[in-house]
Every structure is written in C-alpha cells, then in structure tokens.
C-alpha cells in the first residue's frame, strides 16, 4: 500500500528518507504490523478524526491526567498530557529483545549498586573509575555496608530506548531514582479504548493494566524481616509535584494509602501512619521524593517533605524504602557509559541492548573532542532528568555554542556528550495542520525487581516530540505520548 495513493489524514504525510519510519518501510510500503490499523485510520475523514481526537482529550481531562511544568519563576503550571491516537506497535519478537535487554540492565545495575556500597570490586578491578563514584552527589556514604531488604536497590527502573536510523534499539538512559510515566501508559490505553474501541478487535495485544498488581507484589516481596503481611504506602511530595497524578493513580489502583511526609511519624525506629483510629505501622514505602528530602535529621535539615527519623528506621531494617536511597549513583549519566562492562562483570553476559557512544567531559581527551565538536553532539548534564539542561549541538547558534562551552569547561564532571542520534519517527496527528506528520519518538519501558520476582510491563510510554524536527520528547519540554501495543505471538 503506497502512501501517495492515500487521501484524507495521510494525504500530506511527507517521508524523510533519512529517518527510520516506524510505519513505512524503505519502499514506502506500510509495514505488516501496521497494515490493518493504517487501513482503519485511513478510512476516517479529517472531521471524524478531529471529533475522536477531542474525545480522547476530554477523556484525559476527565481522568485528571495532568502534569506540572516548572518555568524559570519556579511556579508550576498544570497541563493536560498531549496524547496521540495513532498507537505504536511492537511485534512479539522485537519486544522479546527489549524485555530481555531491560531486565538484564536492571539486574546488572542492582548488582552494581550493591557492590558500590559493599566491597567495590568493580572499582578495584579498574573497570569503573573511583573518581566517578566519589564525585557523585548521589553516592550516599550513609548507605555503605547497609543491606536493603531482599537485596534490592532499584526495584523500579525506567529505561529510555530509541530506534536509530539503522533500525536498532539503543538505550539512552536508565532511570532508577523515581522513574515516572507508567500511569500515562495505562491512561493512554484507556483513552484509546474509549475513543476507538473497535480497533482493538483487530489486534491481539498485551494488557498493561496488570502493572499495579505486579508492583504490589514487588513491594510486598521486599518487606522487612519479621513482617507477615506488610503495610505498603506511596509517599508523595504533594499536590504540587509534577507527577502527583501518577502517585495518586498508583495508590488508587494498587489499593494502598497515598501519604505525605506529614502523615507519617517515627516512634522507636518504627514508621507509623497517622489515621483517625490511631497510629498504624508502615512496612514498605514506595517513596516518590528525592533522597535528600527523606529525613531532615540525616539529609537536608530544611526538608519539610520528609519524616524525621525515617532513615534510622530504614537503617535498622524496620521499614523498606523503594527505590533504596543512594540508588541514584547508578542513574548518573556518566555511569551509563560503563553499562556494557557492568553487565559483563556481574552477569557474565553480552549486553542485549546497545549503548550510545558517550564522551565523559571529565576525561581530558573526551573534553577536548567535545569542545571542538559541540555542533555534532548532544550535551547532557549527568544528574538532571526531564530533558532539562540538554543542548543539541546542531540547533545551537554560535553564541549558544560558546555559552555551552563555558559551562562545560567550568564543571566538566557534570557533563557528558553523545553523537546526535536520529530517533525514529512515527505518524503523529498534528492539531494545527489537521493531518498526520512524521515526529520523533522514543520508548520508556518499566521493569520491576523484587525478592525472587521480576516483571517487565509489556508496553511502555512512547513519547513524541510534537515540534517538527525536535529530538527532545520529554513531557516537560512539550512532548506528547502514544499508546504502545506489544503484540502477542
């Protein structure tokens, strides 16, 4: 089926031959997995599609699926998460590789973090430089020699993948502090079902609604010693947090309490929740606040979000924190470079997923290369998330390049650089032009690790850069998302 023969929605779809298109092959034919849905969508008139699109928007509004964006004035602005009605489809074989790959990385990272807080074999073996760890602001010395319940640090991992122009998946980063977005995966599926239920009849796809029950099983599997049926809660920084919707959504769907720091109290190194019937012990806390805010008696004294005494309760093994404090040391983008070696060192396996070549600005040779080639590179701060602080070389003016050089030279340890990867593109409905156009996409997967239990959500958050040519897909930077279908075999 040739795109040129199509009318209506795809009539103005322009293919850039240099980019990997998820829907069309090199010969402009619709790929097999997309043929049915393409046919169904192509049969719609523009007016019909506008109606459906509005229906999906109101579905998000009615579900309260919003997020906060912070501007320079530090004030949060609530936005509805843009959603695209054309799903991304991943076939069973392709997904198998992704699933095995992200699980491999999660397991290797867990072993790595354990090692960093115990014997540090990987450093002594000369594989990961000591300076990379000692200079990391996320390496918590308070965690040294502490054994987290079940031996798990990164219970929840969010791995960001892209498909390059060579058609292969590459990992952009591993998010193991508080990866967010899973509620949007489920929200996207619900919205698409409400708007276009019929299209689901043509595909056998995996459900994503089982995430909540698997998360609860993971939380319960890492209960403190001596606890029979653990009381699990989700701890949120509060309604002003950008991911508050997700915190509330997960608590509701799992069926556990959503608490803020002020709802908890520590007595004799045990954590309790204040309820109208008195104090109720808490055993497992899925915390969605950063390490430094957890306990004002140990970390930031001015933290009003945390609970005084929480870390002592954790250190004594009376409560489990998910993810474990100090996990962020492996979330550092400078560590990412060593992932192939980390996987080989701990698991004795070859990495299943590719890494993007990365330059460490802390290395003199790499720094020299980066400074001389900024226009061809993406410069990223090692400890930021949400797409903040990223500079894409070929989009910068001369003055901006000079400004980036200055900040990199001032704090080289804080930056890495990568070649500008060509993210694959996917047909995306663009409101302003009332048609489908190519837009860059990535994929965030969600993996769970527990005590003798593991789970990868068969689906994910396909993020879309809604501005033409833009490579930053983060919601905080104006990105949207798509439902992601993983086909059953």
């Amino acid at each position, binding site marked *: 089926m040739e795109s040129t023969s199509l009318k209506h929605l795809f009539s103005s779809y322009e293919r850039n031959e240099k980019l990997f298109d998820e829907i069309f092959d090199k010969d402009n034919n619709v790929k097999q997995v997309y043929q049915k849905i393409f046919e169904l969508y192509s049969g719609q008139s523009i007016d019909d599609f506008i109606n459906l699109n509005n229906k999906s928007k109101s579905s998000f509004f009615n579900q309260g699926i919003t997020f906060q964006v912070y501007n320079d004035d530090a004030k949060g602005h609530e936005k509805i998460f843009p959603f695209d009605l054309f799903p991304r489809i991943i076939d069973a074989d392709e997904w198998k590789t992704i699933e095995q790959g992200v699980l491999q990385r999660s397991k290797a990272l867990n072993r790595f973090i354990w090692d960093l807080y115990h014997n540090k074999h990987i*450093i002594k073996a000369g594989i990961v430089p*000591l300076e990379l760890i000692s200079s990391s602001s996320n390496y918590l010395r308070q965690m040294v020699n502490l054994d987290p319940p079940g031996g798990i640090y990164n219970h929840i991992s969010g791995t960001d993948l892209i498909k390059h122009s060579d058609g292969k998946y590459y990992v952009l980063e591993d998010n193991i502090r508080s990866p967010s977005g899973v509620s949007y995966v489920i929200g996207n599926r619900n919205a698409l079902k409400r708007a276009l239920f019929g299209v689901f009849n043509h595909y056998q796809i995996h459900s994503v609604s089982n995430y909540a029950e698997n998360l609860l099983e993971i939380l319960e599997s890492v209960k403190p010693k001596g606890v029979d049926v653990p009381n699990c809660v989700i701890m949120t920084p509060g309604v002003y947090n950008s991911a508050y919707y997700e915190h509330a959504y997960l608590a509701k769907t799992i069926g556990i309490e959503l608490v803020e720091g002020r709802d908890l109290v520590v*007595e004799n190194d045990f954590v309790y929740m204040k309820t109208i019937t008195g104090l109720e012990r808490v055993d497992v806390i899925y915390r969605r606040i950063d390490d430094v805010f957890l306990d004002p008696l140990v970390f930031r004294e001015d933290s009003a979000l945390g609970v005084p005494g929480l870390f002592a309760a954790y250190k004594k093994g009376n409560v489990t924190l998910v993810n474990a404090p100090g996990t962020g040391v492996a979330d550092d983008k400078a560590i990412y470079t060593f992932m192939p070696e980390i996987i080989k060192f701990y698991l004795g396996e070859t990495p299943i997923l590719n890494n993007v070549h990365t330059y460490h600005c802390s290395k003199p040779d790499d720094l020299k290369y980066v400074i001389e080639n900024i226009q061809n590179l993406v410069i990223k701060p090692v400890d930021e998330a949400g797409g903040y602080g990223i500079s894409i070389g070929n989009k910068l003016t001369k003055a901006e390049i000079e400004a980036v050089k200055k900040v990199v030279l001032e704090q080289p340890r804080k930056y890495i650089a990568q070649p500008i990867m060509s993210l694959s593109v996917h047909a995306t409905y663009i409101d302003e032009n009332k048609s489908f156009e190519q837009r860059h996409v990535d994929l965030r997967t969600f993996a769970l690790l527990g005590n003798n239990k593991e789970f990868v959500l068969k689906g994910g958050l396909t993020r879309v850069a809604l501005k033409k040519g833009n490579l930053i897909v983060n919601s905080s930077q104006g990105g949207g998302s798509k439902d992601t279908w993983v086909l059953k075999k």
Partner: protein
Amino acid sequence: MEMQYTVKYRAVHTCKTIVNEAYLQHIILPENNATQELISEIYTVPESCSLQKSINGFGFNSVKLHCKAPFKTIVFEAVFALKKIHEGVQKKESLINTSYQDLNSLEFRTDFETWLTPTDHTSLPEGCFSLFKILETASILEYCLALNSMISAYITLKSDMNPMPSKLGNVLSDAAGNARDLSHVLIAVARQNKLPARFVSGYLYENLKEQSGSQLHAWVEIYCPNSGWLGIDPSYNCLANQYYIKIAHGRDYTDCAPVKSIFYASGKHEVNCIVTVASQQ
C-alpha cells in the same frame, strides 16, 4: 591505667515563638569501643517530651526528643558514667614503619573513599592544595605529629562555638578558629595528602580545679596503614589519650553534630549546651 568519668550534659533549647512540635536529636552518648565502656546513662526530660534512643546516619547512638506539647524552652540533661582505659603510646610505635606506597594503591583509596573525599567543610581553598605536603622521608606518624603541630601553632584556638562551621578559607586567613575549625583544617590537609581522616565529636577531660563547664570537643582520627586509626587533636597539639571520650565520627562536623533540631514553628531557635567532665582515677 583505668580512668572513670562522669559526664554531665545540659542543653537548653529556646525559641522566640511558641513551638507546637519539635524533634531534637542529640548525639552525645559515649560510644563503646576498645578504650572506653559506658557504665550508666541517666536522662532528665520534660514530661511533654518522649525520649527515644536511635542512631544517626552513620549508625552512632543518638538520643531523640519528640516534643508534642507547645513550648518556648526545653531543658534536656544527661549524665553518663564510663570507664576509660589508657591505651599507651608504645602501641603507636608500629606506625613508624608504615609504608607510603599503600596510600597510592587503588584498593586502599577505594576502601577509604569515604574518609578521603573532601566535603564542603573540608575542602581546601584554591591556592592551598600544596599546604604542608607530605615528606616521604618521615614516617606517617611523624608527618601527622608535624602537621598537627603546624596547625596548632598557626591557628589560634578560640572557644566560641558558632552554630555552623566556619569556611576553611576564613579560618586560614584569620589564623583563628575553634576546635571544630582546627579539626576541619587538619582533615582537609590530611586528605589532600592521601591520608584517610575523619572528624570526631566527643568530650575532653581538662582536669580543671573548678568545673565551670565547657562544650563538646572535636578532634581528628587519621588512618595509618597496618596500624589503624590514630586520634590526634590540633587544638592542643597532642595525640588523643585517656582524657578523650569519643562519641561519634563522620566526614565532617555535620555528620555528627551534637544537636540537630526540627521545629514546626517560625522564629529563631537557639541551643546552649554545657558539658562538665569529672574524673575518679
């Protein structure tokens, strides 16, 4: 030689406005180790506060007060009795044969990473990195003693205790600081010279005729390969001996600050601590 001590600690927390709830963490309990043994502990707290024993981030004992009734002033007192065994300096002679090569090995630097990495309070200002460079012709013990003497001679000891540690740059330019500041300088220089060093908070028996009371003391422990941690006090240019009662150690003062307070109120808060150490030899 065995010494017996009685330590009295008194902290007065005052807030300008009424406080409805507060957490007051005191890291004041002498640790049990090879040279000291806690015999008894007695606490006096207001009825409106609950007292709980816990640990700090590095596992040292703490005493926490959870004050749930409105107050403006809280007085907390503790009395500790303990035995101290005089270690003797002969044991330290093993330090003389210490090799400097160990300090450069990756294994050593990795094992002692926590005590070799500068913190905000133990980072030397620019231009001071070559301060008191290690001379490998001397033993590590000799180097430590010389470094201690240099800091002790160069920086005048002040008795005032600001709530927060001074910046090292100011301590060095003013050539004056309290025990905490001198300890931070010694730690910074030791770490710069690849010697693991940690901040120690504790009590010092000063053998004064009149016990008018003082504050908690601070000194340093430096790790010497093949020998262990060596207590060293830049305030009085000596090795820590039977008069030094250790409470806790950390990377710097903030890891083992005697008092950390969380007040659920607005307004300025002050804490005044008085310590008396009496001995029965």
